[in-house]
């Protein structure tokens, strides 16, 4: 990190005293990156972009939103009808929330497939799970703000989860509500926290990146880089690759915003909140459905809540559940089969969470829930012992040079 590499004397003067340019240069320019990253490594930058879009549009929306039970719904409708470009800004905020989760889910499954959570990247992974939890809390509170029927009953059901806590449950829920039902105090505190939490996420993202840059990105082969011959500089190679991903992301986002803005929402949330009547079939936003399915699969209040939170909590200890020394699924033939079974299981839970809690759906939810925990608690630890993995290449360069016939 020498300041002399900048040609602009003003930049050099500042950097000598405040090395922000050196930090940026190190982070986004010369940062050595494995040269074999595929497009699955695009979702980190896309998640970062999503966070920026959410914060920018959210700050703008807050200029016209009123956090009060009597005005919240109307203020959102005013944004949609009267505020200049308000419809566009709100639809971008709504749809980017969904896209943020799509991107983060792909990011998580990328990590699962290529073993990115393994030593020495355990803290990097754990920070990612923290971000995921913060995202879920932020998204939930944001969904309450328009004060439609789904907002109100979503808030009621989710806060009531805490009533499952033995002895103090009811007191905790009263505390969360600031009263004896979801009402104005609940709405105002949710607005405050919804504004705060994205900045907490941004802070954890910084830690996530610091932890990432300690050992560098994992890669599709999952073996450590062995020096300069295995890496390329972040700029221009991965900046360009990230921009390709960003262009695709924005294209899909624009299609959603302009042609299907409410496809990932629920029409009942355009009905003003009515504390006297619950809609016949309430569902959370789609990105919560797998966890919602787990909650409903268990025929016990406390048990359902515990398993639902456990489904996320289990990710925290994943680095110690999977003891296999091989990271990438490319060299783990049995793990690869179970990975895809888990992927299908997660999709199935998502589907089942959106179905009515009756008949065959309940049975299937239970099977899928059991499989989810079986995967992490039994199959992964056993694979670490019994699976015979394929031989690993000596370096990232080796398989490439071998196929082109050049000497290593």
């Amino acid at each position: 990190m020498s300041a002399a590499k900048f040609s602009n004397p003003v930049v050099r003067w500042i950097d000598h005293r405040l090395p922000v340019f050196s930090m940026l240069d190190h982070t986004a320019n010369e940062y050595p990156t494995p040269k074999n990253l595929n497009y699955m490594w695009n979702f980190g930058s896309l998640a970062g972009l999503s966070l920026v879009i959410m914060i920018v549009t959210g700050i703008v929306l807050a200029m016209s939103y009123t956090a009060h039970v009597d005005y919240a719904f109307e203020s959102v409708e005013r944004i949609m009808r009267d505020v200049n470009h308000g419809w566009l800004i709100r639809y971008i905020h709504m749809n980017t929330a969904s896209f943020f989760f799509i991107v983060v889910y792909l990011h998580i499954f990328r990590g699962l497939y290529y073993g990115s959570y393994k030593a020495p990247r355990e803290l990097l992974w754990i920070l990612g799970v923290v971000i995921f939890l913060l995202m879920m809390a932020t998204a939930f509170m944001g969904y309450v703000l328009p004060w439609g029927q789904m907002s109100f009953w979503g808030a009621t059901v989710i806060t009531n989860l805490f009533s499952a806590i033995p002895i103090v449950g009811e007191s905790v829920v009263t505390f969360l509500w600031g009263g004896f039902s979801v009402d104005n105090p609940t709405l105002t505190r949710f607005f405050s926290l919804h504004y705060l939490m994205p900045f907490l996420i941004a802070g954890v993202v910084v830690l996530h990146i610091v932890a990432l840059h300690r050992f560098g990105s994992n890669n599709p082969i999952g073996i450590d880089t062995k020096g300069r011959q295995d890496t390329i500089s972040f700029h221009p190679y991965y900046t360009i690759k990230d921009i390709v991903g960003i262009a695709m992301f924005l294209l899909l986002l624009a299609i959603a915003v302009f042609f299907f803005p409410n496809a990932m929402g629920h029409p009942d949330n355009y009905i003003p909140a009515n504390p006297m009547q619950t809609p016949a079939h309430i569902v959370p936003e789609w990105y919560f459905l797998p966890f919602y399915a787990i909650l409903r699969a268990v025929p016990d209040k406390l048990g359902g809540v515990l398993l639902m939170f456990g489904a996320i909590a289990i990710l925290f200890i994943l680095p110690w559940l999977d003891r296999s020394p091989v990271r990438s699924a490319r060299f783990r033939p049995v793990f690869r089969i179970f990975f895809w079974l888990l992927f299908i299981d997660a999709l199935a839970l998502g589907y089942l969470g959106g179905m009515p809690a009756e008949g065959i759906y309940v049975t299937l939810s239970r099977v899928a829930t059991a499989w989810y925990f079986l995967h992490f608690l039994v199959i992964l630890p056993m694979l670490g012992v019994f699976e015979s993995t394929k031989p690993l290449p000596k370096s990232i360069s080796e398989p490439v040079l071998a196929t082109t016939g050049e000497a290593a």
Partner: protein
Amino acid sequence: MAKSTSNSKSPSADGVQEPARRDFIVVATYAMGAVGAAAVAWPLIDQMNPAADTLALASTEVDVSKIVEGQAITVTWRGKPVFIRRRTPDEIARANAIDGAELRDPQEDEARVQRPELLVVVGVCTHLGCVPLGQKTGDVKGDYDGWFCPCHGSHYDTSGRIRKGPAPTNLEVPPYDFLSDNVIRIG
């Protein structure tokens, strides 16, 4: 970036390097990026301009028949006070007694009213936006018997023109029409 593109440049006959196709692509990419950023920024900035419902409230109708001679009322127009005063013959005479061209903000009284007895001005001091006194009986009306702004001491006459103090211009006359003899619409 410039270094890596220089390889693809070929010197022309006079030794000057021609821009390469790579340079064109780079400039075109930056230009498109700038256009895109501006297009995205505009809605985020424009949303701070008055919304459609705010613009829809930009006119106010007032029944002026109840104002007796010498009395003034204050109405709200676009969130600001508007002073409507039915002036006495004496006040009209005093407003016309001076040559408007000699004032700080030169204007004749007749240019500021549609009917001499009814003066309509925006009740916001042109100095820094305070509301001048002089509407209520008992208010200080200043040295010229019009309005007096207590914030920084501007004196307005019976035509709402600045006569003394820091304000640079006369009280603004809003656009208004007589819908009938008794009703005016401001805005």
